[in-house]
C-alpha cells in the first residue's frame, strides 16, 4: 500500500463564489440523472411509445368521423394531436418525483444532505432541468410523428406558443410530483397516485373530444382540468394564424381566451411551487 497524502484542508472550498458552487452542484446532480437515463433509457422510450400508440390507434378509431363534426371542420387526427402532445408532457412530468423518491428510500438523499451544498434547492433544480428536458424531447418526438402522419405542424410563432405552454404545464406538474415524492411514504404509493391521476385527467379533458360532446357534468370537469388549458392553446397554434385573444373554449362558466389559458397555467405553476415550498424546506433542512 502506498503512503497516502491526506493532509486536512478544511478551507479550500470556501474560496469559491456562491454562484459557482451552486452551478457546480446543480450540474453534477443533473448530470447524474442524465447518465442514469442514458444507461436505462426505457422511461424515455416508454414515454414516447405510449402517446404514440394513443395517437395511431385513437386516430384510426375515429378516422371515419363525419366531416364537420369537430369545430372548424378539423380532422380527428389533427384534433387529437394537440391532446396527445400535452398528455406526453404531462405524464413525463408526473414521473419527476420518482428518482427523488428512490433517493429517499435508498438513502442516497442522505449523502446529498451530509454534503455542504450551497443550497439544497439544487436538488430540486436538477430534477426540474432533467424532467423538463426529457418531457420536451418526448413531446417533440410526438409532434414530429404527428406531422409525418399528416396531422400538421405549427408555424414558427405557433411552435413557440406550443413550447411555452408545455413548459408551464411541465413546471406545474413537476412541482406537484416533487411535492408528492416528499409527502408520500414510499415509491409504491407514488406510483399508485401517478397511475390513478394519469388516465382520468386525460379523459376528463378536451384531449380526445371537444366540450360539446360531453354531458354537462363532464364538461364542467374538463373545463376546470389544467390539461385543457394547455391543450386549447396548442390546438389553436396548429390551426392557423395565432391570436391569443380569440375564444378557445366555450366553458360552462363562460368563454375562455388563449390569454386566459396561459394565465391559468402560470398561476397554477406559481401556486404549486409556493405550496410545496414549505414541505421541501422541512424535508430538506
Amino acid at each position, binding site marked *: 500500500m502506498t503512503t497516502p497524502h*491526506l493532509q486536512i484542508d478544511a478551507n479550500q472550498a470556501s474560496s469559491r463564489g456562491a454562484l459557482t458552487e451552486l452551478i457546480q452542484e446543480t450540474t*453534477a446532480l443533473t448530470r447524474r440523472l442524465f447518465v442514469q437515463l442514458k444507461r*436505462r433509457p426505457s422511461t424515455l422510450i416508454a414515454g414516447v411509445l405510449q402517446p404514440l400508440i394513443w395517437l395511431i390507434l385513437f386516430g384510426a378509431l375515429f378516422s371515419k368521423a363525419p366531416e364537420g363534426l369537430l369545430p372548424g371542420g378539423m380532422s380527428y387526427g389533427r384534433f387529437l394531436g394537440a391532446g396527445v402532445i400535452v398528455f406526453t408532457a404531462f405524464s413525463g412530468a408526473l414521473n419527476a418525483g420518482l428518482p427523488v423518491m428512490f433517493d429517499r428510500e435508498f438513502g*442516497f438523499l442522505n*449523502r446529498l444532505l*451530509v*454534503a*455542504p451544498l450551497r443550497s439544497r434547492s439544487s436538488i430540486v433544480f436538477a430534477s426540474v432541468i432533467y424532467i423538463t428536458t426529457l418531457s420536451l424531447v418526448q413531446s417533440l418526438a410526438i409532434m414530429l410523428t404527428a406531422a409525418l402522419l399528416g396531422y400538421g405542424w405549427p408555424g414558427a410563432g405557433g411552435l413557440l406558443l406550443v413550447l411555452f405552454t408545455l413548459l408551464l404545464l411541465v413546471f406545474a406538474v413537476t412541482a406537484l410530483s416533487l411535492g408528492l415524492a416528499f409527502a408520500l411514504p414510499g415509491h409504491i404509493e407514488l406510483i399508485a397516485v401517478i397511475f390513478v391521476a394519469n388516465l382520468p385527467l386525460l379523459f376528463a379533458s378536451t384531449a380526445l373530444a371537444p366540450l360539446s360532446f360531453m354531458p354537462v357534468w363532464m364538461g364542467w370537469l374538463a373545463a376546470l382540468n389544467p390539461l385543457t388549458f394547455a391543450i386549447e392553446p396548442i390546438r389553436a397554434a396548429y390551426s392557423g394564424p395565432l391570436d391569443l385573444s380569440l375564444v378557445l373554449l366555450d366553458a360552462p362558466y363562460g368563454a375562455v381566451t388563449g390569454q386566459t389559458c396561459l394565465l391559468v397555467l402560470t398561476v397554477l405553476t406559481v401556486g404549486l411551487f409556493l405550496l410545496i415550498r414549505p414541505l421541501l424546506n422541512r*424535508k430538506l433542512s
Partner: protein
Amino acid sequence: MSLIVLDHLEKSYGTISALRDLSLQVPEGCLYGLLGPNGAGKTTTLRILATLLAPDLGNVRIAGLDALKDQRDVRRLIGYVAQEVAIDKILTGRELLELQGDLYHLRPKQRNQRIDELIEMLGMDPWIDRRCGTYSGGMRRRLDLAAGLLHRPQLLILDEPTVGLDIESRAVIWNVLRDLRDQGTTVLLSTHYLEEVEALADRMAIIDAGTVIAEGTPDELKQRLGGDRVTLRVREFSNEQEAETIRALLDPLDGVQNIVINRSQGHSLNLVVDGEQVLPRLRLCLEEAGLPVFALAQSRPSLDDVYLQATGRTLMDAELAIAGQRDPKQERKQAMR
C-alpha cells in the same frame, strides 16, 4: 483539546427513547471507538454529528462550531460513511466520486487528482470503472470510505465500517484509518466488534440504552476493573459438591472476588484475584485442605469483561435481547427524509 463535545443529548422516536442524557468528548487527532450492541444509540449519535438529525435536547459542538446552527461549516469538516452504503447502482465508482467531489465544490483538476490518489490507496483500480451495482460489500465500503475522504475532512465518522466484510477489505480499511489518525485526522467509529476497538481505538466509550456507561482508553477501562481473571480446577472434572467446598475455602481469602462455578466446564471455578501475592496463598490454602491445584489459567481482563462489568451482561447477550425488539419498518422511517 476536544474536537467533539456532546452535551446532555436526548432523542426519542415517538415513544422510543434512543438517547438518554448522552454526553461525550472526543479529543482531536485520536481514533475513537463507540462500542455497544445494536440499538444502543450509536447510529443516532453519529447521525446527529453528521447533521442529519437534530437532538430533542442538548448541545453538539464540533471544532468549536455549533453543529445545530453552523451546519454548512460543520459539513465541510466532516466525512461521513454511513452504515447502509448508499450508492447509485447505475453510476461507476469513479462517477460517484466525481459527483461527490462536485458536491463538496472541489475544483475539477484537484478532484480528479484526489480520486486517482484514493483509487490507489484503497486498491480500487481494477473495478472503479465498473458500475456500482456489480460491487461486493467490501468494494462498496471501500468506495464509500473514499467518498468520505475526498474533501480531506478534519473529522471522519464511520458507522460500523467493517460489518460483514471480508478479511482483506477489513484490513485495508483498518490500515487506512490508522494512517489517517497518524496524519492528524480525528476518526470516530461505531462498532459492535470488541476486537475492532481492541485493534484500533486510542479511546473508547461503551454505549448502552442510549447513554455512555464507561469511557477511557481500552487499557484504562481494563485496569479500572482491577484484578486478573483466573480459571481454576482441582481435577479434570469436579462434581458440584467439590466445587462448592472449594468456593467455601477460597471465599474468606483476602483479594479473591467474584467466585463463580462454571457448570458447563466441569465445575471449574472462575474468580478475580487482586495483587501478586494472592495466588501463592490460594495454592497453599487448597493444598492444606488436600485439594491441590490441577490447572490454573490467569488472564488480564478483556474488553468483554469490561463490557460485562459495565452493563451486567455480555455483548452477545445484549445483541440477542435487542434483536427481538427491533422494528425494521420504524427504523427505515427514521432513516428516510
